[in-house]
């Protein structure tokens, strides 16, 4: 699956487009040291693809999983522009995979080293992956409990009519009630699907629902691999016996592969203790981190302080326009042509996200200081529309962004959102 992603990236020329050509990248706070490596970026992708392959066939599993986690995460950290919740999810799963015994059956490792083979693994190992998936869904559901989503059917009311030329269902997508139905069903689905997947009686139907739901979103929205990642991931909810049968069937294709074993996998007691403690910390963090937005004043959708890494998926239609002016103490002034520094995607993301506006403003400050501007000031004429409200400035035009610092503190220079969205 991941291998396919890397290959997809490569063949579409995205590596070059996203990570090599741009003049500027948006690093994550505290991860400024992570940046693209020029042509060597291809090597990172190659490592990532190779590790994904090794993990898949189960060769040198632990090292490969670690390599996969590091290379994949490195790629994600290079530029905020491409942030997607499911990349974050993949990173987290890779992190967990390092410590989980996913190579004890049907793997090259197990084939080479019979002592590694085990037919059963501790419940908490698959349980922790299930918990992560459940958290993802439930948080995505909670995030939908707001007035725009539930009462206005926004942004689906904007997105669905765009597909009104689809065969059969096209005309339906224009109906207002359909947007409401999709909104509510989507919300209920996210909130409850982990439960239906957990209960043996509903599992098969729930999984069918997962497939239908994600295939539908894949058809309707341009969201890449995410639906397929989730469809495959949700298989983790099926029982060990079910997976055993699947492996037995796959085993017929590759007869050399060990598909069953009577051994029960056991960690060394000390390792197990450390691992369980680690998982506990991990999950406490996962549980609290999405709620950090509560610490910030203002509307989350508008300021996006605490928006990322919180499983907020497809929640808003936000578009913007940002024109920067750089000015110095001697009166020199220039209107910035964003396309000289940013890709269209970077510009699009930057224009609606305050922290990226600020990072870019700082880049401009330094760039023009290097070009002989004396203590340059950076102002932005910004215009952002959120969920069908008409556009308005995201930043006061008289704020000198060159002097504002990027911290985790609330950003006082964001103009207040002049409407209220109730709920989470």
């Amino acid at each position, binding site marked *: 699956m991941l291998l396919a992603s890397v290959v997809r990236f490569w063949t579409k020329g995205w590596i070059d487009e996203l990570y090599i050509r741009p003049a500027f990248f948006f690093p994550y706070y505290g991860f400024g040291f992570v940046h693209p490596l020029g042509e060597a970026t291809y090597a990172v992708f190659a490592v990532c693809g190779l590790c994904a392959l090794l993990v898949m066939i189960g060769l040198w599993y632990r090292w490969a999983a670690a390599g996969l986690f590091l290379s994949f995460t490195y790629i994600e950290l290079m530029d905020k522009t491409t942030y997607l919740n499911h990349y974050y999810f993949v990173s987290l799963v890779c992190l967990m995979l390092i410590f989980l015994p996913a190579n004890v059956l049907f793997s090259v490792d197990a084939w080479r080293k019979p002592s590694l083979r085990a037919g059963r693994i501790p419940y908490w190992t698959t349980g922790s992956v299930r918990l992560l998936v459940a958290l993802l869904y439930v948080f995505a559901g909670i995030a939908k409990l707001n007035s725009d989503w*539930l*009462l*206005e*059917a*926004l942004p689906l009311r*904007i*997105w669905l*009519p*765009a*597909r*009104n*030329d689809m065969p059969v269902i096209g*005309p339906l997508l*224009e*109906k*207002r*009630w359909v947007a*409401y*139905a999709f*909104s*509510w*069903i989507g919300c*209920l689905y996210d909130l409850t699907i982990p439960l*239906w997947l957990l209960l043996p*009686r*509903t599992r098969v*139907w729930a999984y069918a629902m997962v497939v239908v739901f994600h295939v539908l979103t894949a058809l309707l929205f*341009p969201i890449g691999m995410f639906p397929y990642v989730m469809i495959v991931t949700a298989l983790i909810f099926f029982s060990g016996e079910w997976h055993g049968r699947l492996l037995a069937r796959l085993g017929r294709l590759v007869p050399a592969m060990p598909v069953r074993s009577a051994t029960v996998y056991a960690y060394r007691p000390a390792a197990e203790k450390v691992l369980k403690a680690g998982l506990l910390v991990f999950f406490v963090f996962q549980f609290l981190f999405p709620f950090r937005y509560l610490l910030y004043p203002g509307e989350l959708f508008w300021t996006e302080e605490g928006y990322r890494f919180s499983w907020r998926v497809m929640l808003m*239609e*936000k*578009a*913007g*326009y940002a*024109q920067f002016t750089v000015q110095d103490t001697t009166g*020199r*002034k*220039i*209107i*910035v*042509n*964003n*396309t000289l520094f940013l890709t*269209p995607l970077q*510009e*699009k993301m930057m224009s609606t996200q305050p922290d990226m506006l600020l990072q870019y403003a700082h880049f401009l400050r330094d760039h023009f200081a290097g070009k002989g501007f004396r203590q340059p000031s950076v102002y932005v004429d910004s*215009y*952002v*529309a959120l*969920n*069908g*409200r*008409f*556009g308005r400035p995201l930043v006061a035009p008289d704020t000198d962004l060159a002097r504002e610092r990027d911290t985790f503190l609330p950003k006082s220079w964001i103009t207040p959102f*002049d*409407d209220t969205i109730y709920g989470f």
Partner: protein
Amino acid sequence: MNRFSLFLALTGLVFMTACSGDKGSNGPGPDPDQGATNRKALLTYTVDDIILPGYAAFKVKLDTLTARTNAFAAKPDADKLATLRQGWADAYVEWQKVELFDVGPANTQTLRYYFNIYPANATGIEDNLKADNPNLDLPNSYPRQGFPALDYLLNGVGANDAAILGKYTKDENAAQRIAYLKKVVSKMNLMLGLVISEWGNSRDKFVNCTGLDAGCSTSQLVNGYVLHYERYIRSGKIGIPSGAMTNGVAAPEKVEGFYKKDLSKLLAQTAQQAFVDFFNGKSRRTGSEGLSLKSYLNGLNAKDSKTGELLTTAILNQLDAAAKKLQPLKASLYDEINTNKAAVVDVYTEMQKVVRMLKVDMTTAMSITITYTDNDGD
């Protein structure tokens, strides 16, 4: 809870919300008008009632310009120069009503580059007319042809009419100048002919590509339309010559129709009006309004979810505000920039507000992505 009750609960909720949505007071209105959001119908109307009749009307003017060019070339005199200039001005004004169709064949043939890249490159034109067989398809040839080149050739090669006429009669390069004049006009005919005939082949494909992704017609139409306003009306006609975009340093010599001077405001006004007419779907055959961006956006019920104002009303009001700032200016924007620059910058300011609404509010309501990259500040 078993599967059946889950299903019941879901259905019930859907039903409830559907009903509550219908009687909701503020945001939700009636269902979108089905006909207005049919993109195939919109595209068909746009091609058949606006684009193709627009080109046909322009072709009439270009034919007149061509005939008068040939008459002048055959026997250059003051009368023929005067009628040729009038033919040029009429065609230039009519061009403003078709330049905005930067979609389909006009986009693939880059029609605009052969008709209206200004300021004209006067020395380049002089080089070209002395050259054996100058290649008009090279990018550096764009400002050496089309209406701006004709402007220079008919209005700018001498200090007065007698001197200009002399360049076509007594000058050592007179024959070459006449030949180049004809070459420019015949290139314009060639390019327009190509675009019109290609529309004949591509019309069906165009109206059937109804998706909203970047590869399909609606997105390309809107991208070309918004780009036209941003780069060729706001920046080209107003922003760059007035200095509004370049640190306040005005460049009045960059106005459209620089050598003719007193045509520049009319060109800008015509382009602005053509832009509004397109938004309203004004038919070039009947003159009445039909399917349009306006009816489409209204069909989507695009309004400010806070105030309830229709997006189309807001856009049309802002377009009107820009036109009102343009209206009182002198016929020569060159003179206006030299004497009263602030008034021209005011036009830019209003047009800039239009651009934001088009690029952000309109495209977001239509789920269209702006894919062209702007080059502000170049």
